[in-house]
């Protein structure tokens, strides 16, 4: 287990480095974006004097590198600055939203991950049958239209036509959990449909890939029933790629769902990021991107650790 701890620490260290690079990249990318916060905030009514004045007030007249270092100095001490637009501390500005995003991601993941694995196992068992084809066609179709469109279709059938679920997922703090789950069901379902196909197909592929192994034949020759061959003998050896794809999709659920948030008016962090980019509110953009990057790094790490934990060869080295 010492090895595992070492691996985790090493990866976390590299992760910090990655975060640093991401922050540099984001800072200068935002810097390179045409227009700046003053022009963005003032919009159509910007005049050169007001823009210049606003820049001065926000300290944008200082050199970019200097501003970055200032920000970095604060960030290292845990102070991610204040929103340039509203003057609110970054943590306050996006804290709640991040929680919302995590909630939606968790909601979708709790449904999608078991379903895709079960479905993946089932289609691997019934491979090349009608069921397999139909399941594949359905899931593939669901990922081949843009997610906002999928959202529209769900809204049409589940909200407008049958009125089963609310069409917009606006939240308030005094909701009970069941109400919350009901309100956010449609966005969660959309996300489920978006991520299921990928995970299901990877599960299927990973399992099928093992079916020609001698130990699978051995299991069959021991009289193990077909479903047990898949579940007990193939699946445990197929975890590594499956976990990786799950991690990738979880990362997507957290970082990539802007459009779903827009469609369902869900106050998540993706929307905040897009807005902040539009306003060139650098501290917010930076904080969002760092959160996303950290999520990604942690999930990847979790996937690698998971792959190790599910592989006895790595878990119990000789």
């Amino acid at each position, binding site marked *: 287990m010492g090895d595992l701890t070492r691996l985790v620490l090493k990866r976390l260290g590299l992760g910090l480095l990655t975060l640093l690079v991401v922050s540099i990249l984001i800072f200068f990318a935002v810097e390179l974006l045409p*227009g700046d916060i003053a022009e963005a905030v003032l919009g159509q009514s*910007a*005049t050169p004097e007001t823009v210049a*004045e606003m820049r001065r007030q926000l300290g944008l007249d200082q050199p970019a590198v200097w501003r970055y270092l200032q920000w970095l100095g604060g960030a290292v001490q845990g102070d991610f600055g204040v929103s340039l637009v509203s003057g609110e501390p970054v943590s306050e500005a996006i804290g709640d939203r991040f929680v919302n995003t995590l909630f939606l991601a968790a909601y979708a993941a709790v449904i999608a991950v078991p379903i895709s694995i079960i479905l993946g196992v089932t289609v691997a068992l019934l491979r090349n049958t009608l069921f397999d084809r139909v399941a594949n066609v359905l899931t593939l179709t669901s990922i081949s239209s843009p997610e906002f469109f999928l959202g529209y279709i769900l809204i049409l059938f589940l909200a*407008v036509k049958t009125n089963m679920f609310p*069409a917009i997922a606006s939240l308030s703090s005094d909701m009970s959990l069941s109400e919350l789950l009901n309100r956010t069901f449609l966005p969660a379902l959309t996300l489920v449909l978006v991520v299921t196909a990928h995970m299901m197909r990877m599960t299927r592929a990973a399992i099928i890939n093992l079916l020609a192994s001698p130990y699978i034949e051995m299991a069959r020759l021991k009289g193990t029933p077909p479903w047990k061959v898949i579940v007990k003998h193939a699946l445990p050896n197929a975890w590594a790629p499956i976990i990786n794809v799950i991690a990738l999709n979880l990362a997507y659920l957290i970082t990539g769902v802007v459009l779903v948030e827009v469609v369902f008016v869900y106050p998540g962090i993706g929307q905040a990021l897009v807005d902040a980019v539009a306003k060139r509110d650098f501290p917010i953009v930076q904080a969002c991107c760092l959160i996303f990057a950290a999520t990604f790094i942690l999930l990847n790490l979790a996937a690698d650790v998971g792959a190790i934990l599910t592989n006895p060869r790595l878990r119990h080295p000789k």
Partner: protein
Amino acid sequence: TKSAAAAPQRGGTFRWGLHDGNTGDTHDPGTYVTRTMIFLAHTHRSYLTMINGDGSLGPDLADSWEASADASEWTFNLNQNASFHSGRKVTADDVIASLNHHRGDETTSAAKALLTDVVEITKDGDHTVKVKLTGGNADLPWLMTDYHFAICPANDDGTIDWKSGDGSGPYKIDSGEFGVQFSLSRHDGWHGEGAWFDKVDIITLNDPNARQTALVTGDVDSVSLIELKTMALLQRDPNINIFNIPSAGAITLPMLCDTPPFDNVDVRNALKLSMNRDEIIEKIAFGAATKANDFHHSPAQPYWPDDIPQREYDPDQAKSLLKKAGAEGLSVSISTADSVYAGAVDMAVLYAEQAKASGINIDVVREPNDGYYSDVWLKKPWCLVSWGARPTPDVMYTLAYKSDAAWNESRWQNERFNELLLQAKAELDDTLRAEMYREMAMLARDDGGTVIPFFNNFVYAARANVGTPDQLAASWESDGARAASRWWFTS
């Protein structure tokens, strides 16, 4: 409008879905830019004056106002009953501080340009404010309806406290999150009439589909914008009333008059003639628009000249003009973006198809939504712009057609036009003034650098149980942004 005006009654929570909001919004009136903030401002703050449902100018915080003879000095008398949500009375100091917020070197207000000719603002007792101008401006009281000039409580040092969200409007903010939603409840000490609802929820619904479904499913009572594409389909729903209000908002296509080939007036006119406005109104605005005539003065504004001949689609004449200008086979590009106006890109594409008949090749360039107004507008030789409704032709012309205006988007220079603009501004005689505006319209139409296909209507909707006055204001969507204080529930 479909709904009959029954007697208004009190009660209910009005859930109002608005079409434009941003997480980065603030309560600073100087940086109001999204619809959510503008509408919120009209709900929780007050202005000196307001535009009534019938389009006339009415009192808000100011009971009455009068001008000096040359219209260079104005006096506003404040309503003595007006109070902020905190309970404090509204005084002249608050008004002065609020207006000064948009003036001076330190300001970062987007409305700075509107007040450049204000010399000084003084008080005369607690409830009288005097505004002194460099020259005459007959429209100053109209100008005071501009959404930036919301009155906020003054601090002791002459700045305003905008952060707290305090105001003197009909509703006070209970809670809220920018770009998401605000909950408000009635301000009992409001000085005006109306405010029938007990509570108002303002919900930002950026996605057109989200707005429509929320309205259809009853998740909101009214929305501020309907996608024109689906207007006809939505109309079939008996539970929904659609309001289609002609406005002074316009789509313009300014050509930089100092940049070839647009420096040639014949080329400009050829382009104006190559547009089939009827088809554009039918296919892009789905009928919800008023045909424009290449001058930026709408029938919804005062002094509109109704006898100017409409310019029609005439490829042949366009061709001959081009021939005259030696610019046959003209090829130009026009920049546009989806965010300018729903269908803006389509409109440019359609225009390009129409212009082919005149032998003109228009290349449509879609620009990123992000940063359109800082990178494209005023910079690219020809682009597509959406203008909000301005109360009077003077405000509009001063902003964007005066030769030295910061936003003279077509860089059009016309001596006579500038002269007339100054004269009309200070002219208190309506007939003379109308006469001048007619001449300016002709100049803009025949010499100006802006193609104006139409004035877009405001198309918004409410559920059938929402009662509305007979006449709805044309200054903003949702009854001049004041639906919350003017509408009521019928059942």
